[in-house]
């Protein structure tokens, strides 16, 4: 892996813009077609430099490893453009032609053209194993009393499914919000929610599976992770999502190559995800295959 960005943590925020400018100039001097980039043996990936378990500037996330796997299969090496994965991410990166692929997007995300999904995960409840909570249903009456942590996204109608479903049941007085954006100066801002479980600041958290599964994998305090069930009444809220790679709309050539690769490399990809503790579910079933302990 080669990184064109400044991967030093302190330098990241100061230099992202310069990197972006350099890349834009580069794009202006040479034809911007992704096929030309492909000819240069580069797989140009846009990624968040500070968001484990997905990606970081040190290449420690599963999306980093996946990018390397994909690049190796295509006979290329990975070139990163780093950008915080929040509102404006696709606009500022993929659609600004700083890169040709982002390694993780939910299917149905209209800003990009998704490949075939390479995993499906679920929102989960995560708590300390020692507390012996076995809450799996979003309707469990114990949720009226437990101190519950959720991730918040921001504007009206834009929050994580568990937080909205709890609100719909008038469970609000005992719910603590953690901004998904967090403080970007800290490592992996969304991880604060899982750390609150480890520290005992909250009894239980409702979080997206990969975040919770990874926390359970690395936590000093044993954690239990249970997929959230009985969510049907809260449709159109969904608690499970298919995750794909995303290419620019219209980049059918790259999508076709990635689709083929995802189909061929499913065992390796699955092993990679499992090594990060990502809870995987079958598209057809509402229950998870695995509860991680």
């Amino acid at each position, binding site marked *: 892996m080669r990184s064109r960005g400044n991967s030093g943590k302190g330098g990241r925020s100061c230099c992202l813009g310069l990197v972006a400018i350099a890349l834009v100039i580069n794009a202006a001097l040479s034809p911007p077609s992704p096929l030309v980039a492909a000819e240069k043996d580069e797989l140009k990936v846009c990624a968040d430099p500070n968001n484990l378990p997905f990606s970081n500037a040190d290449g420690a996330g599963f999306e980093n490893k996946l990018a390397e796997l994909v690049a190796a299969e295509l006979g290329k090496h990975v070139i990163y453009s780093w950008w915080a994965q929040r509102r404006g991410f696709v606009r500022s990166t993929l659609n600004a032609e700083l890169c040709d692929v982002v390694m993780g997007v939910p299917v149905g995300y209209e800003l990009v053209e998704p490949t075939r999904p390479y995993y499906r995960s679920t929102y989960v409840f995560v708590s300390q194993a020692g507390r012996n909570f076995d809450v799996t249903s979003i309707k469990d009456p114990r949720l009226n009393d437990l101190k519950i942590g959720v991730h918040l*996204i921001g504007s009206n109608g834009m929050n994580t499914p568990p937080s909205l479903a709890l609100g719909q049941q008038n469970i609000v007085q005992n*719910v603590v*919000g953690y901004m998904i954006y967090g403080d970007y100066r800290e490592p992996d801002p969304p991880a604060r929610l899982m750390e609150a479980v480890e520290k005992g600041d909250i009894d239980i958290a409702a979080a997206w599976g*990969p975040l919770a599964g990874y926390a359970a994998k690395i936590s000093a305090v044993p954690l239990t992770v249970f997929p959230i069930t009985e969510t049907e009444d809260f449709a159109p809220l969904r608690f499970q999502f298919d995750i794909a790679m995303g290419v620019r709309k219209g980049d059918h050539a790259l999508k076709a190559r990635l689709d083929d690769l995802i189909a061929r490399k499913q065992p390796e990809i699955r092993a990679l995800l499992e090594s990060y503790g990502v809870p995987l579910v079958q598209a057809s079933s509402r229950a998870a295959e695995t509860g991680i302990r």
Partner: protein
Amino acid sequence: MYRLANARTALSQRNKPGAGLIRGAIAAAFLRNHIRRRILLLSGAIALIATSAFAQTHAAPAADPADLDALSRDQNQWVMAPRDYANTRFSGLDQINTRDAAQLRVGWTFSLGADRGQEAAPLIVNNTMYVVGPYAGPHPNQVFALDATTGDLKWSYAPKPDTAAQGVACCDVVTRGLAYDQGKVFLNTLDNYSVAIDADSGRELWHTKLGDVNEGQTITMAPLVVKGKVLIGNSGGELGVRGWVTALDENTGQIVWRAYSTGPDSDVLIGSDFKPFYNWLKGKDLGVTSWPPDGWKTGGGTMWGWISYDPALNLIYYGSANPGPWNSNQRPGDNLWTTTVFARDADTGAARWALPLNPHDLFDHDEINENVLLDLEINGQLRKVLIHPARNGYMYVVDRATGEILSADAYDHITATKGIDLKTGRPISNGEKAPALGKTVEDVCPAAPGAKDWQPTAWSPRNKLLYVPHQHLCMNLKASDVGYIAGTPFVGAAVDMYSGPGGYRGEFMAWDPVKRTKLWAIHENFPVWTGTLVTAGDVAFYGTLDRWFKAVDARNGTLLWQFRAGSGFVGQPVTYKGTDGAQYVAILSGVGGWPGVVAAAKIDPRVRNGALGFVGATQDLPAYSSGGSELLVFKLAGGQSGSDAPQPNPSHANGAQLEAGNALAR
């Protein structure tokens, strides 16, 4: 001697736009001398300040240059973004008038070199124009000082901001302008620095960091200086930022007071002299108790709009933004003091009254819009009022001493609420339009940006009319859209905006706040996202997203002149007199902001709910304009009679339609 020395400095700096962040002993010594001079001037000239009917003055007295209120009465200058403390944006200049406006021509132009939304108002002080660009280009938030008559560049100042701000700023990387006082120019950078710059040399005098972009906080508003304090509010409510207004000592940059919009009374600066008009606003720590536990800590209520100031009452006025980041079903209660008009003591920040306009806001209806301070004769009585053209679509006329709503009338099509209950001051809710999970709610008017957003109105004391640039949009809400932030997927409400009844998306209209009616209206294809200006020549100016800058007759809306620029307009027109005796009109061209980001930043226009739903309403904008950053300065063609005046019917060439009468608002 002083001027000469600085002219030399200016010359030597002319080609050094990287001169920013110079500080240390030289600047400090300079500052000390400067203040001393100003104090001497002040003591001699303070007697010259004449009292006159508030906000109605348009003579040009010999102002004390040390007093900003007095300086703002000099009609030849434009010394603060809202022109005066009352936020009238009225100029007493009349060289450009209804008879000759058709002869307006470009005097000079200047490129800011940063092609994102240009929302800033240029300032003109002592024949120097100060203008600031957005957080874009090679030098984000760069400040330029130009000879206001010739366009010669005197100096520029380029802060070295944190590029992370681009990734966390809501909506677009705009700034709404600078402030000036006592020989200093005050800049807010998007990444939360307040910077004082010497107005003559462009040297930095001090800077203060007020927040961190990494926590989602930004600053986009134009500061206002009141009695030696720089007043600043923050942005970022959607990111869990808790809103505040902060006062800095203009000489040192030190924080004098900070008033939060949520939380305990001690944080909101609510004390014993807080006297809200309505009973439901009386009680202890309502900024805590009107939320679920701890909800107020990340409750939003930022302040990215306008501040006005009444020197006689010694009160400042501003409105706070929407509650966040919780969905409405997760924050039962009134969520005070978000979407609230505050009156605060100008010295201490202590709240005197507060008026929440949208308690438990459901529609993202920030109320950061301007409050125009007027003395109006209502029912035979002269009342000190403020007019707040609200996001929620009502034109509030409020007693600015007490916070009592005198009237609140719809000025655009409204379905979201059924009116304002004058007994309580609260909107009458329309249950069927309330967003609910899994339910598609259609035809919510006004849409999330409201009937009017930040784009400020202007008041003509000649015609007793308020000139209102605004949008005319409705929206459908449905929970169906897949979103993705920091690796976390979710189903979000799809906000789909579209033109309101009649098929037009914007309007420029004249409102009579005493008769409570719309006198005339010009329908525009796109939302009218510029500020406006009205003059003693009875000319009102505004711009459009599809690149027209227009002068209309303030009495009846007849189009007098229009100019097609390189990029669309989201800026603020200003006017002043040059050293050549000519009246100039200036505005920045460069489409962007919330509705224009689709054209400037290449959001995929096929995705109707991009840019938080605004793309749907403006998805054809790229066919009319791309980004730009051109300062345009107009004046009358010398001595020529107009040959290319537009036809009497103004609704030609660009789809604008004029309608007279009052029916529109109903």
